[in-house]
């Protein structure tokens, strides 16, 4: 009787996956090697890009093959390449842990990496040569690290990948290393991530200390952990050791750092200094979801903690709202997308927190596609307009010749992000929102996220209406480089030039995207649209701990068969068996003993959020059904506001109706534009004091104590030598006398010893 099944595969034997699964790690390494060889040979062509695309496509095909090989019914599978290291009881293997979560993640990581490498082949073309090789070196290394992170068989491999992606992120943000802002941003990203990484490292140690292993196969199959979850589901958190409850708190610090959650989100917007393909792949689609992956992978451990999931939920919610408000007031379209990414990551964490890993996982997938698409479209604009990203200086690109596919891609990305009905973003966001209302005590989160959804729609379409709609007008950015191939842009330009004579740069011709960028944008647009199909197809009846569970759709099928599996007792749609089970138990127990009935009752409805006897509703409707209308309404209101303020009646790129409205809000829009001065606050609170301490404590310590010690060691032989040096007089007789005296003393000593021994005998 008793509990809700939380772990899908805990009772299964561990199967062995084929060794060719290691190719998913090996092929990106091959990519790393080829870019190194290209750099050594001084290749001045696009060869490293196309070899990279080949390697990554190979990794994608291998992942797909693994997907078709893998049968979730047999539980997770492992591949052990070798024993990585062993220190005392602490052992870590270099191997893969494969379950549906791994495959789910790796499919979009390798798929997107392939597409974005193809995009980058064109985007980075002005850097062909050593820089190009350097870019693809870090790119491949990133995919390898990400594969380690997602596929690793234990926390040590996850940590390896975690640091690896951090390093690659650093290298790629600082790709334009001659630009000071890029170097600063790279350092900021690295240092902020270190703070989170400390939490992850401590979580790793504590996991080992408490469970005695860091191997997933042993950890998630352990009776100890299962016991904790049973206790947690019974609401008996006091019986779970505090040590175990601290593990998720530490791990989530790591997750918040990597996934840019409050208060560690500040690095991500600055990370936009990197080349746009990097922003799309690392800082939107894959690396920043590593934190979500970590929480999903350790979901059982999070469930066993009383406070972990509520903290995750509220952090995500606060981040989502905060980033959305900042995003509304930015003018740099890439920054808007960056804040949007922070905000959407907040949704994913909120989803994990309100007990819907399915919704979070599905949102990761849909977001990966549409946000990569949005970034790549922004990147195409940036590439074509000499680095111009200010939405006040770009307008009406829809009607510029050669920009059709970019406009279309941007539009598909925007409707997904804004949550227009029947798009993938709509379904995935709704799953999280609905679940926030289903889970007791989190309705506030639901309302905040709904409001944020409205803001999201507003700022998304603000970009679209400003940049792609309205009168044709554009100014180039600062990176004017040689556009030998003149891309004519039709009548509109001449007409427009006549209209805005003085403002317009007559000599500038935008550089329409070529085949690689267009192909990738079109592919991603199609993928983003098709991703909504995953909400409809792929449902399956699963066997979870002997209960039949109807997974409604593909993402649910994938997530529920992994360690992230959690079937909420409140979910009366998905898990009908739980409801029935609950009633049966309650009836049976009532007959026996009233007290026992309470216990059994609590067993079913307790979670990290206390108990609830009946499912919640939102505005009197069933959350899952009602959310379709409510979130659509919020989204549409946002879009209409964006249309009214940023498109309707706008005749220039720079001015719109919003300008007048914003003035009525006093200083608030300016505060939002300055990111609520969070960076300044951190400067005052942390950087300033650290600088002071460094300058006045660490620097003197370094200079006088550390350097002093080293110098003292250097001085010792000198002082010793100055004492002995006079003996080297150069007088031959002096040396001879010394020798004789020495020999005499030696002889005397030897004779004394010989005689004393002889005498003794």
């Amino acid at each position, binding site marked *: 009787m008793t509990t809700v099944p939380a772990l899908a595969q805990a009772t299964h034997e561990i199967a062995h996956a084929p060794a060719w699964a290691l190719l998913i790690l090996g092929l990106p390494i091959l990519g790393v090697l080829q870019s190194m060889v290209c750099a050594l040979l001084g290749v001045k062509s696009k060869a490293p890009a196309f070899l990279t695309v080949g390697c990554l496509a190979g990794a994608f095909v291998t992942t797909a093959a693994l997907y078709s090989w893998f049968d979730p019914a047999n539980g997770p599978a492992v591949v052990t390449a070798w024993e990585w290291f062993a220190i005392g009881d602490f052992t870590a293997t270099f191997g893969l842990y494969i379950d549906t979560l791994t495959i789910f993640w790796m499919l979009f990581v390798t798929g997107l990496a392939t597409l974005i490498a193809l995009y980058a082949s064109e985007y980075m073309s002005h850097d062909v040569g050593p820089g190009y090789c350097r870019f693809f070196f870090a790119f491949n290394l990133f995919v390898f690290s990400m594969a380690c992170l997602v596929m690793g068989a234990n926390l040590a491999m996850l940590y390896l990948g975690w640091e690896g992606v951090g390093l690659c992120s650093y290298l790629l943000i600082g790709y334009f290393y001659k630009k000071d802002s890029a170097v600063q941003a790279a350092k900021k990203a690295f240092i902020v991530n270190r703070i989170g990484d400390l939490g992850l490292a401590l979580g790793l140690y504590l996991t080992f200390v408490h469970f005695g292993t860091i191997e997933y196969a042993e950890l998630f199959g352990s009776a100890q952990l299962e016991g904790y979850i049973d206790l947690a589901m019974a609401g008996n958190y006091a019986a779970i050791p505090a040590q175990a409850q601290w593990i998720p708190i530490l791990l989530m610090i790591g997750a918040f750092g990597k996934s840019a959650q409050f208060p560690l989100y500040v690095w991500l917007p600055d990370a936009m200094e990197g080349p746009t393909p990097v922003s799309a792949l690392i800082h939107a689609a894959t690396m920043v979801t590593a934190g979500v992956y970590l929480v999903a992978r350790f979901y059982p451990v999070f469930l066993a903690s009383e406070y972990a999931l509520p903290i995750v939920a509220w952090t995500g919610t606060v981040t989502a709202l905060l980033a959305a408000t900042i995003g509304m007031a930015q003018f740099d379209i890439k920054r808007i997308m960056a804040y949007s990414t922070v905000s959407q990551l907040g949704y994913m964490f909120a989803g994990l927190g309100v007990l819907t890993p399915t919704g979070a996982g599905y949102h990761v997938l849909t977001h990966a596609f549409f946000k990569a698409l949005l970034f790549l479209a922004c990147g195409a604009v940036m590439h074509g307009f000499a680095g111009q990203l200010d939405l006040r200086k770009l307008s009406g690109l829809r009607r510029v010749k050669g920009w059709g596919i970019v406009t279309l891609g941007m539009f598909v990305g925007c409707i997904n992000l804004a949550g227009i009905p029947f798009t993938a973003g709509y379904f995935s966001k709704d799953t999280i929102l609905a679940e926030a209302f289903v889970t007791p005590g989190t309705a506030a989160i639901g309302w905040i996220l709904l409001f944020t959804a409205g803001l999201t729609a507003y700022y998304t379409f603000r970009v679209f209406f400003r940049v792609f709609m309205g009168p044709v007008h554009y100014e180039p950015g600062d990176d004017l480089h040689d556009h030998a191939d003149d891309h004519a842009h039709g009548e509109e330009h001449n007409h427009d030039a006549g209209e805005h004579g003085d403002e317009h740069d007559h000599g500038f011709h935008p550089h329409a995207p070529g085949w690689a960028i267009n192909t990738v944008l079109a592919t991603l647009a199609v993928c983003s649209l098709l991703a909504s199909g995953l909400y409809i197809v792929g449902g399956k009846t699963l066997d979870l701990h002997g209960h039949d569970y109807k997974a409604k759709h593909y993402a649910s099928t994938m997530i529920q068969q992994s360690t992230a599996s959690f079937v909420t007792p409140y979910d009366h749609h998905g898990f009908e068996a739980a409801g029935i089970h609950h009633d049966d138990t309650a009836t049976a127990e009532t007959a026996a003993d009233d007290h026992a009935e309470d216990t059994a009752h609590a067993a079913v409805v307790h979670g990290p959020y206390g108990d609830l006897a009946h499912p919640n509703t939102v505005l009197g409707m069933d959350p899952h059904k009602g959310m379709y209308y409510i979130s659509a309404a919020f989204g549409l209101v946002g879009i209409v506001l964006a249309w009214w303020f940023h498109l309707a009646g706008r005749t220039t790129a720079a001015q719109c109706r919003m300008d007048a409205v914003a003035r009525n809000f006093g200083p608030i829009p300016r505060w939002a534009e300055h990111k609520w001065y969070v960076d300044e606050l951190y400067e005052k609170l942390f950087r300033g004091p650290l600088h002071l301490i460094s300058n006045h404590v660490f620097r003197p310590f370094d200079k006088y104590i550390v350097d002093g010690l080293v110098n003292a060691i250097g001085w010792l032989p000198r002082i010793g030598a100055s004492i002995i040096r006079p003996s*080297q*007089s*150069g*007088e*031959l*007789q002096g040396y*001879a*006398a010394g020798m*004789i005296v020495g020999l005499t003393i030696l002889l005397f000593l030897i004779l004394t010893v010989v005689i004393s021994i*002889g005498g003794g005998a």
Partner: protein
Amino acid sequence: MINDALSSLTLAQTGFPDSVAGVTLAHYLSVSAAMFTLGVIGFITRRNLIVMFLCTELMFQAAGIALIAFGRYHLNFDGQTFVIFVLCIAAAEAAMGLALIVLLFRKAESLSAGEWKELQG
């Protein structure tokens, strides 16, 4: 103890004249020690390179006498064999040493060891 052993023994063989028969190991070692000391004193006190070189030869020969005396005393030929080697080496060394002295003289126009003080290192 050693002194007793030395003084009670004679190195003379049968048929030696009486005046020689009384010569003991101690006598030979005394001569050797005297020669060696003279060599050392000469080496330290004199500055002339050739004289100093002769003093080293003197020390060589002193060691040789001691070796032969001990060889005879123990009735084996090791001491004498060894002295043959020492003489050979001394001859080679004399050839080289004198050549060096000639060169040094050409450089410094003097035979004084003090001329080469700057080689102190």
